[in-house]
């Protein structure tokens, strides 16, 4: 059984979200992609009552997370995902415009898988997603929804 991870793009800038999606598709990724416009929307997807049931069993996810967003920022989303025992193993790629060393360090401490700075090298970016996608597919089925 091969489950393609659904790619969650958490990004407040509409242009960035389109570029990410188009470049991933151009690189040959055929994964389903969902777009969330801020951190709160992403948290709702995972933590709202009934969210786990709505996601469907056995489904794997990969999160592309911007940092500076209105309402809830990416660092807070990352922190909450990594603090949850059933979501902890979810691969999270921080995708952000800053290269501030403290910010990078903070994200790694919190447990992000990869940190990529925009404007991105889309080839490297697609490669990272492909590998992580393979990784979740092979190793972590079903990582989410397990109690």
């Amino acid at each position: 059984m091969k489950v393609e991870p659904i790619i969650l793009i958490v990004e407040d800038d509409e242009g960035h979200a389109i570029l990410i999606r188009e470049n991933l598709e151009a690189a040959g990724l055929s994964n389903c992609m969902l777009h969330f416009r801020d951190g709160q929307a992403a948290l709702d997807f995972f933590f709202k009552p009934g969210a786990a049931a709505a996601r469907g069993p056995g489904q794997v996810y990969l999160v592309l997370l911007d940092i500076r967003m209105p309402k809830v920022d990416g660092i807070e989303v990352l922190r909450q995902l990594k603090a949850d025992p059933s979501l902890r193993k979810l691969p999270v790629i921080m995708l952000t415009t800053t290269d501030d060393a403290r910010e990078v360090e903070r994200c790694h401490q919190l447990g992000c898988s990869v940190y990529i700075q925009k404007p991105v090298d889309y080839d490297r970016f697609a490669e990272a997603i492909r590998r992580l996608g393979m990784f979740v597919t092979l190793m972590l089925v079903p990582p989410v929804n397990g109690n």
Partner: protein
Amino acid sequence: MTREELLARLSALESVVPPPRGGGDHEAELLAAVTELRDIKAALDEHSIVAITDGAGRITYVNDKFCAISQYAREELVGRDHRIINSRHHPPEFFRDLWTAIGHGRVWHGEIKNRAKDGSHYWVETTIFPRLDAAGRPVQYVAIRTDITRRKADELELQRFTAELAEKNKELEAIVYTVSHDLRSPLVNVQGFSRQLARACEKIRAAAAGAVEGRVPAAALKQPVEEAIPQALRFINAGVTKMEMLLAGLLRYSRLGRVALSIGPLDMDGLIANAVAAMKFQLDEAKAEVRVGALPPCLGDATQTNQVFANLLDNALKYRVPDRPLRIEIGGRVEHGAAIYTVADNGVGIPCEHQPKIFEIFHRLDPDATAGEGLGLTIAQRVLERQRGRIWVESAVGKGSTFFVSLPLGESSVPTQS
């Protein structure tokens, strides 16, 4: 120099000094020496604060400068010890160490904070020189001091400025960080969609190259011409507009720091009435009810303070709850020597975790809900800081927000700490 060396030096000295020839010459020499010593002492008294104590620390002599700075008369000082001017600024160990040094015949240097008769404090740079008897025990202590009160005050001021500067630097760093991020964001779109534009051009070129008999099939052009290119142009234009707006905002913010302030007494009743009148149209349109209480006067720059309150009123309008009439209450009071004004609304309110962020440059809590560049409160904060004022907020989601503005009350009550 050891004791043995000293004795050897002394005996060597005796052997070279010619024996006194006659009594008259000897007396003349003595007189000359005494005169010289007296003049040196006069010079010392002109420059320094001098006190002499006996071996137990009791004052036996003070010069005029000592009396002047300590505000005590000579009779009040002689016979007492230095505790009379103790400011209690220094810990007991400080004086213990001092006494250990001079008690062992060593010269002591240091800075002491003393208390004058009227309770005011003064700082003296001090040298205490123990005069020893033949056995090497101190019999007298000569203390020579210089008034350094002014220097100490300057040092303190300098420390305060340094801390303030460090704080400002940190703020500036945070602004540069935020702005560089915010400027990069549209740049990513300009770069990314430029590549999309290039790819679309490439498709059109390929279609043109493959044209049969000079005819390019419309189907090959549809995607680039109708979708890719317009989308790319839309985002590139939006990116450029955003960058322009950010730069204009940044310029406005930086200009604020250079505008000369004209600080004077402000009639706040009048100022607020004007600010409300200037927004009458928008307030009426929103059916807003504005209540203004009695406001204490304060010290500030009229134009800039007006801008602060105009911004707060504008925010109350912007973040009102659409399905209930907007109520704004403006009040004022005097607290801890400052005038504190409140602008309270019954609007949407700000969640706790977002409250510290609302003063950050270009920060927008909900960019889709309302227009704005995220600069109003940042500017209000900057404007108030320059007038030695402050702004802060208390808010509850669904109930409304209250903004507090403090400004100095008057000349005499301007806080020394900014």
